[in-house]
């Protein structure tokens, strides 16, 4: 498994998506009058701050983190639902922010699609399934008439539904089937890059397994590139090639999936791994992470994780660590303790309750 992944990465060195110091701030200031009277400045919430990564063609890059860490914002930035405030996104060598004609823009948009978390909210309840799936095909002028109907039937078959299902409405389907419809719609524009924002979080485990298997299967057959977002580390372990761990808008560790689970380096990654319930029932007691994610409006100084970090020192409070490549493992870590090699072995770590 490791070999095939490494081999795949070597031979397809082409990077489809590159995020370069991506940042997004949301202005959450009080209204102008209040600011003038109360003499307050503008308040900007940095949802994403200086995030850089690249996704090679045909692979899956996952972002994990707790709610409010900015992973969904990254997803929306990549498909162009938000415009970045700093940094840039390169898609297949082209800058996404560069000026383009309408036709060029359409061609670029067709190459990326998004699958959302909640299949109950992301499908129009008043449209028949065939219209939902045909919408991207019509929008990108890919087919019309009989060819369109045929294509819709083909897409439905591809995601494990029947072409007759196209006549039904979304409410006639279960959650898992609806998510299959979302996937069919995303595939309709013949994209190369799919952004999946928690596609299985709203589903039951047995259905989650079906969707994950389907997504892997489609990736193998169509050579898709995924950005996969989840808070569930076990799901991420199953589907990813490379994993990025986010905390308060910044990446704290980027590593191959084997590296991150066998040799997690950042203290936050370790504590996150520690929180996974133990299905093997080895009886080891887990040390829950102490504390909670701080308020992103007013993040801690230095390393944002330092108030919860068991190995934080003065430098961590003062100076913000940058993501630095770790030559030994090939992963990237943003941690002073890792850099100074004063991080204890994983077993010696743990917070207090």
């Amino acid at each position: 498994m490791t070999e095939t992944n490494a081999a795949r990465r070597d031979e397809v060195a082409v990077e489809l998506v590159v995020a370069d110091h991506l940042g997004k701030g949301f202005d959450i200031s009080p209204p102008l009058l209040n600011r003038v009277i109360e003499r307050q400045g503008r308040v900007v919430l940095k949802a994403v701050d200086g995030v850089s990564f690249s996704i090679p063609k045909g692979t899956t890059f996952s972002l994990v983190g707790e709610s409010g860490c900015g992973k969904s914002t990254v997803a929306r930035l990549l498909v162009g639902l938000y415009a970045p405030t700093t940094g840039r996104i390169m898609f297949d060598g082209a800058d996404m922010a560069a000026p383009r004609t309408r036709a060029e823009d359409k061609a670029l948009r067709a190459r990326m699609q998004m699958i959302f978390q909640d299949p109950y909210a992301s499908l129009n309840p008043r449209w028949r399934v065939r219209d939902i799936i045909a919408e991207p095909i019509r929008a990108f002028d890919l087919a019309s008439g009989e060819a369109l109907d045929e294509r819709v039937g083909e897409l439905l078959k591809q995601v494990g539904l029947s072409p007759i299902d196209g006549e039904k409405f979304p409410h006639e389907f279960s959650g898992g089937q609806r998510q299959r419809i979302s996937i069919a719609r995303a595939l309709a524009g013949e994209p190369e890059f799919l952004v999946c924002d928690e596609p299985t979080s709203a589903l039951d485990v047995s259905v989650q397994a079906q969707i994950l298997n389907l997504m892997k299967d489609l990736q193998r057959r169509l050579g898709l590139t995924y950005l996969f977002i989840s808070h569930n580390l076990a799901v991420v372990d199953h589907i990813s090639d490379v994993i990025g761990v986010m905390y308060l808008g910044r990446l704290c560790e980027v590593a191959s999936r084997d590296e991150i689970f066998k040799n997690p380096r950042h203290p936050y990654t370790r504590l996150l791994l520690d929180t996974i319930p133990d299905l093997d029932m080895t009886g080891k007691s887990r040390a829950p992470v102490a504390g909670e994610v701080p308020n992103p409006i007013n993040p801690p100084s230095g390393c944002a994780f330092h108030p919860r970090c068991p190995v934080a020192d003065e430098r961590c409070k003062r100076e913000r660590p940058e993501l630095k490549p770790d030559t030994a493992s090939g992963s990237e870590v943003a941690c002073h303790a890792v850099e100074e090699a004063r991080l204890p072995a994983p077993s010696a770590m743990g917070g207090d309750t």
Partner: protein
Amino acid sequence: MSLLEVEHLRIEFPTRRGTLIAVDDISFAIEEGEVLGVVGESGAGKSLTGAAIIGLLEPPGRIAGGVIRLDGRRIDDLRYEDLRKIRGREIGAIFQDPLTSLNPLYTVGRQLVETIQTHGETSASAARTRAIELLDEVGIPAPERRIDGFPHEFSGGMRQRVVIALALAANPRLIVADEPTTALDVSIQAQIIALLKRLCRDHGTAVMLITHDMGVIAETADRVAVMYAGRIAEIGPVRDVVKHPSHPYTEGLMGSIPIIGHRLENLTQIDGAMPRLTEIPKGCAFNPRCPKAVDRCFKDRPDLHPTGPTQSACWIAGGDLLDLNLDTPRRAGEPA
């Protein structure tokens, strides 16, 4: 005698198109101080079972049959006022969303004091002292200051701690916890599970832990009941159910959970979905999705019977009827 006994419980929803049976003839017991996990997919009837025990079943849903006994006393047919005395004092409840189970207009302290005074004769100041103690016990920092805060001033994890404090306020003997960690982040989830486990051990409180997360059950519960389409598919000690499930549904459920370190190209999947209440098939409700189903499974409905250390409702569990090689997982797209 067990602390809680549920016998042949049946919950119905009368609708215009006929009566739906949401929970169909289930029986189980919870011992003093025991944690029973109830696991199943959405719509399996696990939350309804919990609601029936606390007496919070919402109309038109109703208990159509069976008996619920707490400490030998029947509680399913009590009048509203009598039930109120049991609810809170003897059976506590924790729900999924801590924001909706707290009143946003009252301070946390007022809600705690009210609960304490409702269930015990104490003065306002004694109740307040007890409330601070409770908040301290559930791990809220600076409780003497936080007690005057409103729910919106607390984070999700802290709110759930307050809800646990409320549930424990009257020292109940049983707590029904319905998805207590589902709305929380993973790191907070671990904190809350650890807290719940510690408190129940210290107080000797029994817990009925309802969740869809097998991981939470594996860590917390002593025994587990797996529910499917309104019935218990398998019940037994948590270790046996997790490690050596005997019902094909439990087996599929365990196989479909991705586990870190167990790398598979594809997860084992159970094809299809749980049937709707209107379309529950004849015989065993799991038969359309079951890879092992035999003729009998389509005709007769199996009841719970001992299969090794656990009890399963399955004609072929235990392996005496058929010995098929069923370890090969079905792939996506292949016909069932």
